[in-house]
């Protein structure tokens, strides 16, 4: 005979204010199998748990029901309390009378109390059919996949590899480095981005524990935490990286000129190219869209000049597979396209550029030898207007969030302008100056004094052309007047946006993303680097806009998570997984089709007792099954049972109310 203990929590006032907790206890006591029922202020506190432990021994309880908050909050806590009292932890059932009752029925205490009692009754009925379950151990593949080789991916890869855990780093473009490789000097200390980034890029390439796979994409991820299998597409580079020395003869001779992405299209690169001189790996790739040999079969110059014979026009995309145990996603961000700002003349006026274009111009290795120049006539500008929040905090035209980095980099840009063009004057149109961060406020203050920049608080309403100047009209909210500034160059601090392919990538990885396309963390405060899928972590701007210090911190946090995951040789796994009763299985394979984790395969069993004939049935890999229950629902002949949610348990629940 089952002996159930029921423990009802007040959750301070959270439950007690809207549910008559003592009444729920009284109702519970009426259930035949309930031998002990009690309420308590905070069941999850240590004295609360002690009540459970004591009652198990005193009343020889066979299963426990805790009526409290969502099992997501404290199921683990209470399971542990059962274990500590020598009881199998899976004999616990949690009735969620907070999220499912008190919080949603705050206006009707009577109904909320009745519902709470029903939930308790169901949990008691279910718990009677609970079985003892035991954790499963599965082996772990100690290798991590890092997707994206910006500063986030680089830092995560290095930190993981330094712990002697092999890393596979997949980068979409021909070189790692990401956006940071396009920056000049960086706030708040103004050290040159290349100087601090390049050594890290080189470390990645030479690290014995890192396998760098550039110019490639992730196609498919299968499996589960500790045991993923990833398919990677290596795009054809048409250059044999093994023999190429990176001498550059090919790209010097290539006749095809293409807009240079690295320099924001300000100058040209060739059809065979390395994105920038410090690229890692420093091997060129052929841009198949523009190479005339590949498009029209005419040219072939690069192959002729390559002394190593490294050019191979027949090269095909290659698909490779790796077994990995954890994933760090670090796909960074895109720059938001300011096209909707028609009133600024975006697209019409040449002398309006974006912040990243400005960044490229002032960079020592940039297309203009480090000088900002007007795209229209190549002259050095004197009056430069910076406009912040272009696309950011603008629900109507852009995105409602704050891009977080623009205040700081615009300040940096005023300094860089001042350094490069001594007699220049900068104007900044701004909504706020958000300079929260170590040394940030000081950086902004000092810049204002040193550069003598004019700050105008307000949005720009219109930009129009007057001769070869641009007239920037906006409001100066501090004096409450419309102001007009004559500018030689206008720089838009365009918003940071999520990478376009993030939704596709998220679907492929089985993780979620928000309405903007940023990948979602498991908990905004307490689990900011984990995703809801075990073993997949997030670093850098792919989760939300952030600057380099924050990106690097998050990347290192990911590395710590990966190292923690790989600390043992095996991993404990929840035993709430599915199994097939082969006697009932007809081999229809609906379950095989529906399992989102690829956990189900087919197997052959004798047709009947002693029969030599074989028939096909389903078989579930217990290491792979995540206990989602999809197969259980799809199987018509109920040949599949999910431990912890068996038919008798569910039917007991239904029948109890």
């Amino acid at each position, binding site marked *: 005979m089952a002996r159930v203990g029921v423990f009802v929590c007040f959750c301070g006032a959270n439950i007690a204010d809207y549910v008559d907790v003592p009444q729920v206890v009284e109702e519970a006591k009426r259930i035949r199998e309930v031998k002990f029922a009690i309420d308590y202020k905070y069941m999850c506190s240590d004295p609360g748990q002690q009540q459970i432990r004591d009652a198990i021994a005193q009343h020889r309880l066979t299963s426990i029901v805790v009526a409290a908050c969502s099992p997501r909050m404290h199921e683990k806590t209470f399971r542990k309390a059962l274990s500590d009292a020598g009881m199998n932890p899976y004999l616990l059932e949690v009735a969620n009378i907070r999220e499912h009752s008190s919080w949603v029925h705050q206006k009707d205490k009577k109904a909320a109390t009745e519902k709470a009692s029903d939930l308790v009754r169901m949990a008691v009925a279910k718990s009677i059919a609970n079985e003892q379950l035991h954790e499963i151990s599965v082996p772990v593949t100690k290798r991590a996949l890092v997707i994206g080789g910006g500063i986030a991916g680089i830092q995560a890869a290095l930190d993981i590899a330094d712990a002697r855990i092999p890393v596979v780093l997949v980068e979409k473009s021909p070189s790692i480095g990401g956006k940071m490789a396009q920056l000049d000097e960086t706030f708040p200390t103004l050290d040159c981005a290349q100087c601090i980034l390049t050594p890290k890029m080189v470390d990645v390439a030479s690290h014995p524990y890192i396998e760098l796979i550039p110019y490639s994409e992730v196609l498919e991820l299968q499996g589960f935490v500790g045991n993923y299998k990833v398919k990677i597409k290596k795009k054809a580079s048409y250059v044999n990286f093994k023999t190429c020395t990176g001498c550059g003869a090919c790209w010097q001779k290539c006749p095809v000129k293409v807009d240079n992405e690295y320099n924001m299209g300000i100058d040209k690169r060739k059809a065979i190219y390395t994105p920038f001189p410090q690229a890692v790996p420093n091997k060129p790739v052929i841009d198949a869209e523009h190479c005339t040999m590949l498009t029209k079969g005419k040219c072939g110059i690069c192959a002729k000049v390559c002394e190593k014979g490294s050019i191979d026009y027949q090269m095909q995309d290659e698909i490779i597979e790796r077994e990995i145990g954890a994933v760090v996603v670090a796909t960074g961000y895109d720059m938001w396209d300011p096209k909707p700002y028609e009133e600024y003349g975006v697209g019409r006026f040449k002398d309006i550029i974006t912040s990243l274009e400005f960044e490229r111009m002032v960079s020592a290795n940039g297309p203009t030898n480090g000088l900002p120049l007007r795209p229209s006539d190549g002259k050095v500008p004197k009056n430069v207007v910076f406009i912040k929040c272009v696309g950011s905090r603008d629900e109507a035209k852009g995105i409602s969030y704050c891009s977080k980095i623009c205040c700081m980099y615009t300040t940096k840009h005023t300094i860089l302008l001042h350094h490069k063009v001594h007699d220049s004057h900068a104007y900044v149109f701004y909504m706020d100056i958000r300079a929260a961060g170590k040394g940030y406020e000081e950086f902004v203050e000092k810049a204002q004094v040193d550069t003598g920049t004019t700050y105008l608080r307000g949005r720009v309403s219109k930009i129009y052309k007057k001769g070869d100047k641009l007239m920037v009209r906006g409001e100066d909210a501090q004096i409450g007047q419309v102001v007009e500034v004559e500018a030689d160059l206008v720089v838009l601090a365009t918003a940071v946006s999520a990478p376009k392919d993030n939704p596709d990538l998220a679907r492929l990885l089985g993780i979620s993303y928000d309405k903007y396309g940023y990948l979602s963390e498991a908990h905004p405060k307490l689990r900011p680097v984990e995703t809801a899928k075990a073993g997949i972590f997030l670093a850098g701007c792919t989760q939300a806009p952030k600057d380099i210090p924050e990106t690097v911190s998050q990347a290192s946090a990911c590395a710590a998570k990966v190292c923690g995951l790989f600390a043992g040789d095996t991993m404990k796994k929840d035993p709430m997984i599915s199994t097939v009763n082969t*006697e009932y299985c007809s081999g*229809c394979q609906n379950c095989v089709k529906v399992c989102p984790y690829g956990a189900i395969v087919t197997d052959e069993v004798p047709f009947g007792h002693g029969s030599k004939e074989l028939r096909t049935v389903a078989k579930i890999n217990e290491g792979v099954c995540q206990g989602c229950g999809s197969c259980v629902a799809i199987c018509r002949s109920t040949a599949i049972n999910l431990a912890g949610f068996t038919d008798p348990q569910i039917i007991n629940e239904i029948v109890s109310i």
Partner: protein
Amino acid sequence: MDYTKQIQEIATRLFAEDKIDVFVGYRLTGFDDNQVPALIRESKDVPLLVFNQKSVFNLSNYLKNDHTRNKRVGLVVKGCDSRSLNLLLTESQVKREKLYVVGIACEGVVDDAGQKMQNCLECMVPAAVVYDELLGEANMERRFIINADIQDMAAKELVQRREYFEEVFENCIRCNACRHSCPLCYCAKCCIDQETATLYNGANTTSSAFHALMTWSLHLAGRCVDCRNCEKACPSHLPLHLFHKWNERVIYENFQEHLAGVHEGDRGAFYKYSMQDPDDFIM
């Protein structure tokens, strides 16, 4: 519609060429002009085979039986029968290479009174969709019809509908003939027969019939091909097609005009998922 001669010729040929172990067709009962399924194992019995508008049964149901399983089988299928055959192929219950399928471009079969069957009047896919050889012309254009029964049902309030069915279920004797006669009910152990399935237990109470038949009809939702084997088998003459036609209509209207078993590899609307799937018809 009489293909007796052609079918006999095909069966004779298949036995002569040693292509099959058994031929599944129709023969006369011996009492009247009604027909029963025939399992022919030798060429000398081939003259028993007939095929005409009285060849009503869906013979794909005979593929799950001991005499045909893992054997090389010759099989006659009309439009609806071929669709259930298609599902059996998709659901890995039979192997195509073991079958020689004689498809019929069906002109409709008749009931005991000689009236064309209602499902034939409404049939969307009269010609077989899987076959090695097709008898008749396959160019019959059809339109989806919601029959009068279903219109009546749709006009009823939910409560009235339930009352109606409770009355219907009173006559069910839980013999399970409906299930046994359905080609798509091949489960190794039907959910209704399982010890844990307490909802269906209790000999022939209205409630157990209700639960069993509702479950059954949901297991056929998006799979039932409207062959009416089940209805013909029911000793209590329950209007079983009502469940199936109701489901068929809901699925046709909500899931891109889905019809069961028309395409090989298609498991049915309830066995795949798309973001566009509607859910507003769920009670």
